[in-house]
């Protein structure tokens, strides 16, 4: 298991390097000049100096290596400095956003909590809805509950989140006025009433994302349960006189959860991508909205860093899912 983990981690490094190169070259190919929007009265030599100060004077491969160095060396060192009061990263160049001229990671750090609150909560709620639906659907296969569950997951899977989001806004905030349609990120939780306001504004975005996630996970749970319900060990458990409740909820569910847990882990990076749309619908100023603004503003360091962070998340959770599968299921042997 350890050698397998090590091998996978080692394999992840070239993968990530390659992905970063692909993203870098794609952004490099893109036409678009960060100084193009500046006033035409700026003389050409000053314009060149501005370009150089943005780090655009160097050739492509040098800039790529500088970016890699900044991402993998300077930024972690800077973080260590901030945490322990050391001075490793003193005077080293960090990744600077073209738009705001401040370090990219500082802006990202401001945006992460909003995304994590909304997206993380939505995923949690989605999983909590999905598991019981999957279990009951499988246990009562072809019953009306199962049929309804199938329809529900099909609809949840097919109706895009930007439509469910807008529809919920129309119903619950325009017509009924129960929930706000815009997520207020300046809200600080200080007392009970501000906490209630926070819960209130989270209801709609969380519902949208949770329904979408629950639709997929409940299907996986159902099919995993169906695979296990006909196994011999279930008959044995029943034969030795265990209560039906124990058989299903302890024996079958625990075994069925093995593949589902890995699916849940694999889905985590995907929801950050899906959150781009939901954040746009509810005007949450999280990572997704930051990416959209950066793309529209030609802010290449920001786009590069954010996209690469999404790629790191995907590779990381693929790794976690594979290792988790090996740990949870002793029958799986990778070596």
């Amino acid at each position, binding site marked *: 298991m350890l050698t397998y983990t090590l091998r996978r981690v080692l394999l992840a490094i070239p993968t990530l390097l390659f992905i970063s190169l692909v993203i870098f070259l794609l952004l490099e190919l*893109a036409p678009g000049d960060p100084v193009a929007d500046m006033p035409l009265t700026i003389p050409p030599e000053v314009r060149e100096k501005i370009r150089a100060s943005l780090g655009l004077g160097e050739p492509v491969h040098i800039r790529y290596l500088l970016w890699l160095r900044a991402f993998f060396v300077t930024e972690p060192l800077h973080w260590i400095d901030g945490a322990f009061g050391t001075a490793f990263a003193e005077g080293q160049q960090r990744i600077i956003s073209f738009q705001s001229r401040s370090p990219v990671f500082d802006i990202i750090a401001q945006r992460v909590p909003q995304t994590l609150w909304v997206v993380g909560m939505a995923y949690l709620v989605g999983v909590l809805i999905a598991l019981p639906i999957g279990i009951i659907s499988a246990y009562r296969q072809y019953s009306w509950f199962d049929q309804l569950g199938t329809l529900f997951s*099909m609809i949840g899977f*097919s109706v*895009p989140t*930007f439509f469910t989001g*807008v529809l919920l806004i129309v119903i619950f905030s325009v017509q009924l006025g129960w929930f706000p349609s815009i997520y207020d990120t300046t809200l600080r939780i200080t007392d009970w009433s501000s906490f209630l306001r926070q819960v209130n504004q989270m209801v709609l975005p969380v519902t949208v994302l949770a329904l979408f996630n629950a639709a997929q996970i409940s299907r996986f749970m159902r099919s995993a349960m169906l695979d296990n319900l006909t196994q011999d060990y279930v008959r044995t458990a029943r034969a030795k006189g265990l209560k039906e409740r124990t058989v299903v909820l302890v024996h079958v569910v625990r075994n069925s959860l093995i593949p589902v847990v890995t699916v849940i882990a694999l889905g985590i990076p995907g929801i950050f991508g899906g959150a781009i749309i939901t954040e746009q619908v509810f005007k949450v100023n999280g990572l997704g909205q930051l990416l959209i603004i950066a793309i529209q503003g030609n802010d290449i360091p920001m786009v590069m860093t954010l996209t690469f962070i999404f790629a790191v998340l995907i590779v990381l959770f693929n790794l976690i899912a594979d290792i988790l599968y090996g740990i949870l299921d002793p029958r799986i042997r990778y070596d």
Partner: protein
Amino acid sequence: MTETPLRPPRSQWAEVWDQFRTHRGAMVGMVVFLAIAALVILGPWVYRVDPTFINIRARNQGMSWTYPLGTDQLGRDMLARLIAGGRVSISVGLTAMALSILLGTFIGLLAGYFRRLDGPLMRLTDLFLALPLLPLLLVMVLFFREPLATRFGPETGIFVLIVVAIGVTSWMQTARIVRGDVLALKEREFVLAARSIGTPDRRMLSRHILPNVMSPIMVSATLGIANAIITESALSFLGLGFPPDFPTWGRLLFDAVDYIRDYPERVFWPGLMISLIVLSANFIGDGLRDALDPRIRGR
């Protein structure tokens, strides 16, 4: 000795159709899909209103006999725009799906059949699966919109860009499924027999392997239409898809969101169309998967 009456011989597709018909969801899905396709294809001949005609005096109208679905903020007829948008959305869906299926099948066949290519091609597939697709799509569309628009004209340029962008980022699942099936087929006796009479690789693939992996390809093609339509709408919804005077369902939804407080019905129709077409494509895919599976068929 009496002859047992044999059933008349039937083609494989008749059997598939029989099985498909028993899947209620798939049949409803097919009816809905064909109805929307008919509306979108035949619509402009029946409902002769120009979707780009601006009539500023008749803006923001509700439903009426002259404007069945009302008009938008510039007085353009919503029904005509919905039909025109559907044409674009569905053709993007179909073309992007065709491209992704072509790529996926090609890579899957090569990786499954030629052992030397298997490793590199599957690593490539894994790399593509690890790419953050939605951010990359956004980057591609925004940055390459201008050069392609100047080269092919604004409409064709965007169309080509979006179709290619969706196509090259969605072939991986098909490639994996096809590769898996080809690997299993390669060990079968009929392949051995074909090889023993000296069939060249090219004909081996086209005559023996490809026809046998058609079922999973058809299923992923159906699901691919749904995926492509959703992706295109999402891009348009983020304001990074088609330009405003070139309506698609996603674009109509995006434009309507600004007026959501006063005219919520404008959001409803395009969203409903996207949802219905995706839902029906997914149901058809589901039914097709059951119908093409010989283990389920005939039970």
